[in-house]
């Protein structure tokens, strides 16, 4: 098999199941945007193709993405490895450029206006570039991913666009970069790091939930119990006891200093408020250093759990069977803010009920498992790392977005892949996915 014959028949070796799922998802997405926008008083059949409504725009986005997808499937898969480094650098440069050229949309300065009233969000594109450079780095023969040094380099590659995103007030996008942990874990990141991250997460939540002094007593008590239990071993090896004490000190430091520091100095006031409101507490914005200087104080006056409350009402009112297509009262009444983008899941939940949401989730779960299967059948490390990056990014978006709409996660503005309205987001996910499919189609011939 030669490269040229592959070019002539691009569907050969391409995973059809994923393409079908992709098309279903995009169709569901357009339907959901239509439900949100639907107004019985207007003749919707006319406005379908006029590009004046969101759903007709989304259709144009989808058509454009179809061309992009075909184009990706037609180019040589070697190009992706070749362009990995330079595209990453380009991406970072674009992100830096937003600080100069950026347009303010919804309070985040992360968009670059391009022709025709469309805007480009470099942070979105950087996800793809980061996935590529990570794959390239790990797949290099000289890289030994069991070494700490490699971990740190990989971590730096991921952290750079994440930090830039935070600087652009795009907390959600920054969080997405943590999705690369899947790929790194698969390639040899020690599980201890996952455990440590998990413990840290538990500790942060515990800090928010419990009184500081109560938590300090609990941590100390656990440390004391461990020492008492393993007293004999400590006699043999003094290092162990030092280790336990060091962990105890770190925990204590996290609770006492790190968490308050993050909430008061790193997060914006509204972000802290959202996280606190998740667990039913109120955050005192006067503690927040950032809000003291910025003018976002007014924003926090509106009850911050309004979105989540309305979102839960919309989903909950769907019941088992749902209200029916176009019959959702909350959707019609526009009770859920940002329903066509971040809260698109609510329109589905209200209209089709538990049956609809369950089917939808099952579809997505099947999609993710299919991607993992594709990842595992790759013979090249590059393709596998890239595939796991795609899995991670998709999964992270889905999990965080849905958890946010049903009140399991604080509100961060990240879209539901392939469903939410938005050309940038649809283009990113299409590109991500079809690069993977292109790599997968060539899995037999190249060993990168």
């Amino acid at each position, binding site marked *: 098999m030669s490269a040229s014959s592959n070019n002539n028949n691009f569907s050969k070796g391409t995973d059809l199941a994923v393409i079908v799922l992709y098309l279903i998802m995009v169709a569901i997405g357009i339907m959901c945007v239509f439900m949100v926008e639907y107004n019985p*008083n207007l003749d919707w059949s006319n406005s379908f193709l006029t590009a004046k409504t969101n759903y007709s725009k989304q259709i144009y986005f989808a058509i454009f993405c179809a061309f992009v997808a075909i184009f990706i499937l037609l180019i040589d898969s070697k190009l992706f490895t070749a362009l990995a480094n330079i595209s990453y650098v380009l991406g970072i440069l674009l992100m830096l450029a937003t600080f100069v050229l950026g347009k303010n949309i919804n309070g985040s300065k992360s968009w670059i206006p391009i022709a025709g009233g469309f805007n480009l969000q470099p942070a979105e594109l950087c996800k793809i570039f980061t996935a590529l450079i990570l794959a390239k780095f790990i797949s290099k023969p000289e890289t030994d991913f*069991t070494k700490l040094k490699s971990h740190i380099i990989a971590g730096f590659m991921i952290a750079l666009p994440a930090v830039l995103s935070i600087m652009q007030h795009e907390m959600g996008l920054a969080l997405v970069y943590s999705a690369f942990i899947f790929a790194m874990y698969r390639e*040899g990141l020690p599980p201890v790091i996952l455990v440590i991250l998990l413990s840290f997460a538990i500790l942060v939540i515990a800090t928010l939930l419990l009184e500081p002094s109560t938590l300090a007593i609990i941590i100390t008590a656990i440390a004391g119990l461990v020492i008492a239990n393993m007293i004999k071993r400590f006699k043999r090896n003094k290092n162990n006891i030092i280790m336990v004490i060091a962990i105890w000190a770190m925990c204590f430091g996290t609770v006492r200093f790190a968490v308050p520091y993050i909430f008061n100095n790193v997060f914006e006031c509204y972000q802290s408020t959202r996280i606190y409101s998740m667990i039913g507490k109120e955050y005192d914005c006067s503690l927040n250093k950032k809000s003291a200087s910025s003018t976002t104080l007014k924003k926090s006056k509106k009850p911050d759990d309004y979105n989540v409350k309305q979102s839960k009402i919309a*989903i*909950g009112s769907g019941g088992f069977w749902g209200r029916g297509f176009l019959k959702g009262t909350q959707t019609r009444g526009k009770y859920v803010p940002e329903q066509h983008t971040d809260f698109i899941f609510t329109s589905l939940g209200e209209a089709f009920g*538990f049956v609809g949401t369950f089917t939808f989730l099952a579809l997505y779960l099947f999609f*993710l498992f299919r991607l993992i299967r594709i990842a595992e059948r790759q013979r090249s490390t590059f393709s596998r790392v890239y595939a796991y990056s795609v899995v991670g990014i998709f999964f992270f978006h889905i999990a965080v977005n849905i958890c946010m709409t049903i009140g399991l996660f604080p509100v961060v503005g990240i879209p539901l892949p392939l469903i939410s309205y938005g050309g940038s987001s649809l283009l990113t996910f299409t590109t991500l996915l079809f690069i993977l499919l292109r790599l997968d189609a060539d899995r037999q011939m190249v060993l990168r």
Partner: protein
Amino acid sequence: MSMYNSNRGGIIQIIIGVIFFFIIAQLISLQIFSSKYVLAANNNAIFRKIIYPDRGIIYDRKKRALLENTISYDLVVIPNEAKGVDTATLCAILKIDKAAYTKRMVEVIVKNSRVKIGVFEPFLSAELYAQLTENLYRFPGFSLSERSIRSYPYNTAAHVLGYVAEVDVNFLQKHGEEGYEMGDYAGMTGLEKQYESILMGQRGVKRYLRDNKGKIQGAFEKGQFDTLAIAGRNLYTSMDVEVQQLAEKLLQHKIGSVVALNPKTGSVIAMASSPGYNPNLLTGNQRRKTIGRLLTDTARPIYNRAIKGQYPPGSTFKPLGALIALDEGLITPSFGYNCFGLYTSCGDPRKCEHHNAGHAANLQLALANSCNSYFLQVFRMAIDNPKYHNAKLGYLKWKEYMNSFGLGRKLGIDLPSENRANIPDTAQYNKDFGGAKYWNSCYMLTLGIGQDRMTSTPLQLANAMAFIANKGYYYTPHFIDSVEEEDDRDKELLVNFRTKQEVTKIPTEYFDIIKEGMHGVTVFGTAAFIKVPGHEFCAKTGTAQNPHGKNHSLFVCFAPKDNPTIAVAVVVENAGFGATWAGPIAGLVMEKYLNDTLTKESKTKVDYLSNVDLMPAAIKQWYVQNNKTEMLTPIEYNNDELADIWDMEMVSEVAPIKPKVDTLKKMDTLTKPIPPAAPVPKTKSSKENALNPKLKKKKVNSKLTNVSI
């Protein structure tokens, strides 16, 4: 090297699976096990609009509408949309200033929030309505909304019909489960209250979809959950508008009451109470001006004396006393009493109006001449009846008769707050005289001539006449004969009015004797000069002494004698002899009802009677002292003049006279059952006061008048 980690793909799958599991668990909890979200969603998005049906109409016996519905317009506003309003023009049209505009706007917002419609100015006059429609484009957010209000084409029967008013917090608490809401209107008194459930009809509910800003998006589910408003059903009475108007006219410048019943059915033909008021003055924007004035008036014009006034029946009681004695076998029709103008058997002599010998030679004569001595004797015989061994048991038997005649108890007429008046209990006498052993028939002797502690309402007296006219039974007095499209529940409601109340077993021949006696009254007795052209009738006059002032003038009668179709009771307070004032009024009422018209002679009598001023001096004094226009009487049957009545100065030729002490005392006691400024509408009257400092002053003064006595 990476191949060693191939099991990690499985671990990643497990992690994804676990997270999805949590998501689905939360979805199950939200969508399947929490019903509160559906409720919350409906509260959010479904706006219930109540559609008010027209209230039912009440007709008289000739299908003339005693009250109707007319359309009135309110100026309403959605505060949120009232931006860029030409306030200067609006204020000029409504004749308010800028501050009042702001104040009303705030009131609307407080009551109904910014996004809902609230009433800015209710009950627009025709002139205002025209001006506002022309200029409405200058007032964004404002609109005109239709509302149905009551009107009374005959300006009559205010006490009977009652009025409709906006419900208050108290009402909502009492009627919590009947679906009333703030801003609704409901019948507050009279028939409007009694038959509220029938008259109000069934309110319809329309459901609209509303968006997050409270704007209506259209019908919810194409209106398939909407319920239609069902108009209130009409009520049919046996009242006669013309008789009612006549009765009211005859009572002008007097305090008193007229009740006319049809003995054959118990239906009320007319019920008037004076002073009264024009019912049109309590509808629409008139109400605000009127209600405070009505509630503070010392003559209490909103008090329905026909069912609440308690009067000693005086001599009108005598036929009943005779009936008891006949039934108990104590006397025969030929029983006579030798009266020389005094009754002395109980020591302290009691006066009789007649001295001539033989004026009480038999029952008929005694009735016709209204001999006091005769009936005092008859009463004593009933109480000291040897059959019952002692006075107490005798009295109890007598009281039983009284109650079965409908005295001393509520008759159950279909009006709210009927008074039972009083037939004293033995307990009261036991208390007064130190025990059952210590009193006998002499102690409450004047009960025999309808005095002592016995009181009755005009309605009870009219009913007693119906009882005699029917020779032993009556139908519970009532207004409503039938309901439009009557259903089982209505039948249940009216069943009492259609059941013959045969409470005694007195043989009809005794009634014949009494009737003969009462006929004698009109032929050669105390009422011989009262005639009803073309009809023989039976009557009894009454002149009830009352400790507080001039005698009350009473008259009871029924006609025609042999086939009675009307029974009338008339009371004129502090007027003197029953035959002088109450009698002619009753005669004219009967004539109007039986002949449907009045003779020329009778018409002049009407003019004369309606202009006679029998108002107690103390009340006139009150009007003069408080600089009140005498707005309540007379009621003119002409809509155009309504406004003038209100502005009319009281034309009183009486210079401020010093009130007689006893007259004022009488007023004082009369006010006991209901204090002058009834506490119920306190908030309203206080509002009125705030608006009009004059009213406040008047209130203080009225207190002074009472205290200074």
